[in-house]
């Protein structure tokens, strides 16, 4: 679907003109410099030229090779600026979509609780993406559209584009954000207006209930960086089905089976390296003694309890 150099948005043309201009100049100069170098090595080689000339100045030449590059780089600057300036001028009629970046996935919020995992946008319509981060720095990059802007917590960064090509295009995270940075991917899907309206109408309204207070603490402390919610193994054991689970832990030199109860959960947060679930490494987790209060610990335990009961 996607070819190498698709110009997928209204902004791409000017960017590519800047590319072509800069690359063309670069090629000419690099080849020129290299050719001159080879010419010098051959023509003025010691074999052929035993008598080096001794000149060391040429004011005209020196002025020329200061002024001409100056003009050229100013042109490069100008092309770059002209290609870039429209990226910061969002048309008033642009359709807003809130992009939520978190370790390690994207969500696209169309308002009214409609949240999608893919960025579906109508063909030839202005779209503004408001970039929100829930944890660390990310960066939203859609190569085919030539747009990129960092997604930084506490910042109201944005970008906009008008898709001028239908199809499916890659979205990457381009600000390093930890373990699964290279899996923080999504697709931008450009469809007809009619198709888009139907898709949006059919999009399920997300479960918008506020988080359990315990889960909120878990999220605020970035526990989910290392402990998954879905049973997958990241750095530490998953939280899925945690409460009441029987598990084998390594404590000191011996192994023992324990039940993951209130006490165990609290101990694992305060003194995480006393007992390590078998198959995981010691020393990766630090104590949260000063970060999570006793009250909060109760809420976390309560959350894990409720999560198991719900099933």
């Amino acid at each position, binding site marked *: 679907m996607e070819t190498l150099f698709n110009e997928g948005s209204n902004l791409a043309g000017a960017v590519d003109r800047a590319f072509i201009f800069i690359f063309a100049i670069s090629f000419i100069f690099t080849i020129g410099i290299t050719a001159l170098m080879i010419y010098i090595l051959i023509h003025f080689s010691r074999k052929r030229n035993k008598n080096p000339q001794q000149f*060391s100045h040429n004011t005209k030449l020196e002025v020329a090779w200061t002024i001409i590059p100056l003009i050229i780089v100013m042109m490069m600057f100008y092309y770059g600026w002209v290609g870039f300036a429209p990226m910061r001028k969002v048309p008033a009629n642009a359709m807003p979509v809130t992009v939520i970046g978190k370790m390690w996935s994207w969500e696209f919020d169309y308002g009214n609780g409609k949240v999608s995992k893919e960025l579906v946008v109508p063909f030839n319509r202005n779209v503004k993406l408001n970039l929100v981060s829930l944890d660390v720095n990310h960066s939203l990059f859609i190569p085919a559209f030539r747009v990129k802007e960092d997604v930084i917590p506490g910042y109201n960064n944005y970008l906009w584009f008008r898709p001028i090509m239908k199809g499916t295009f890659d979205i990457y995270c381009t600000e390093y954000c930890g373990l699964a940075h290279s899996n923080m991917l999504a697709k931008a899907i450009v469809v007809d207006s009619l198709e888009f309206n139907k898709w949006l109408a059919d999009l399920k309204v997300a479960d918008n209930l506020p988080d359990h207070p315990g889960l909120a603490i878990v999220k605020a402390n970035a526990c989910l960086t290392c402990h998954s919610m879905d049973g997958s193994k990241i750095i530490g054991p998953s939280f899925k089905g945690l409460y009441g689970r029987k598990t084998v832990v390594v404590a000191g030199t011996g192994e023992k089976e324990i039940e993951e109860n209130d006490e165990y959960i609290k101990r694992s947060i305060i003194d995480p390296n006393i007992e390590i679930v078998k198959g995981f490494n010691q020393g990766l987790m630090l104590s949260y003694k000063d970060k999570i209060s006793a009250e909060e610990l109760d809420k976390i335990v309560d959350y894990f309890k409720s999560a198991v009961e719900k099933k």
Partner: protein
Amino acid sequence: MTKSITQEPLNYLNHKTGLWSWLTSTDHKRIGLLYLYSITIFFCTAAVLGLLMRIEKMAPGQTIMTAQTYNGMFTIHGIIMVFIVVIPGLAAVFGNIMLPIMIGAKDVAFPKLNLFSWYVFITGAMLGLYSQFANGHSPDTGWTFYVPYSAQASSNVVIALTAAFVLGFASILTGLNFIVTIHRMRAPGMTWFRMPLFPWSLYATAWIQLLATPIVGITLLMVIAERTFHIGFFDPALGGDPVLYQHLFWIYSHPAVYVMILPAMGVVTEIFPTFSQKPVFGYVPIVFSSMAIALVGYFVWGHHMFTSGISYESRWFFSFLTFLVAIPSAIKVFNWLSTMYGGSVDLKPPLLYAISFIFLFTIGGFTGLTLGSLATNIQLHNTDFVVAHFHYIIFGGMGFAFFAGIHYWFPKIYGRMYNFKWANISWGFLFVGFNLLYFPLFIIGIQGMPRRYFDYDPKFQMGESLSTIGAFILITGFIGMITNLIYHSRKGAIAPANPWHGVTLEWQIPSPPPHENFDEIPIITHEPYRFDNPYTK
């Protein structure tokens, strides 16, 4: 080959012997060699990590290591290469060994401080390594330690910043030492404009070291204050600003790029006149372009942050300044070519490395312009294009200039000569390997392949695999080169005092130089590059 000589003349290598005499030596040449050996060890370590990463990326998905290991590797690779190898590299090694000799001094202004700097450097290097393994954490922030990610995981970032600061302190002390040396210790008659250009480049570098490095210290204090007293500087959870961290980081780390490249330019500026037997073309413009790079280099840090959400005005203004800093570099390239033009050019290994420096630096420079231009930067920022660009500048530029320098001054340093054929063959591997390793990354970078990606889309596999093959060729060349040098530093043919017919002061004293360089301080009567009696006539 040489017959064993019973009574070798005394020089700085043999006037005292034993490890202790090296570890306590205040001789600038010995300290330079201490830097050379320690930096070489660090370089080899980080290069092996680089090779392992390339093997991992031979194919998409997991190949030989996990994502966690990969993320740790690019972090350590970056920290070692940037802070321990390249920033101190040329200035500490060749600056120490050659600066006093080239200006006709017996040593630097503060020899004991000079030795102390090396110990500070080693302490910082150890701290840097320790930061990566402290608390049992495998490190994975990247060498840039961006908050809030770096603030989340552990306290390692404090140690890492401390390491950067301690290393920076060694850099400040060396810079201070060089500035005073250049101001106060020039031989009688050596006016500023009779000083060779490598010392000039060190002078410009030293000012950057002195003025930019304290920023790291300030950043460190702010991070510690944030951790300890919960004053929100950077962490949004405390009401801080993550982008402020990026500003402070790059206010130091961008000028640091010029700390790497200016001495490299200085080295090749010595090589071209010697191997052309012709004065440097445009001595004064080269001096001023060095100073201009040092000055303007302070004001372009924002080009690392074009997508971070800084204001529209700062984006175009930083872009504008970035283009201005290109001009002095361009002037230097034209000056080097004109220095050779009309000369009697002898393509010995040092010149071979020096001209490949021009080629690689030109590519690095032009791709830098592509990154400095706003529209194209948006596409390229944080892609493999950036990785390729800075390796062309740092490795292709500073690295090849270092190789040129070591082949140039080797006979002076050791009093022996390496094998030319080996040097040339190794160069071939290095040059081909280098380009195959990094050039494909430009292409896939333009297509959108992000950097610091453990896994990638199969459409990028062609570029990634070629790059890995290049890495193997490059390493082969490096092994060839270093074997040639190490072997011949002891077993090579005895080198004459002035094998290349150079005219700067280091070639007028014996090889290896005596303990205090000059029996009698020379008196300088003319500009540095005057080939009155070309040996070739």
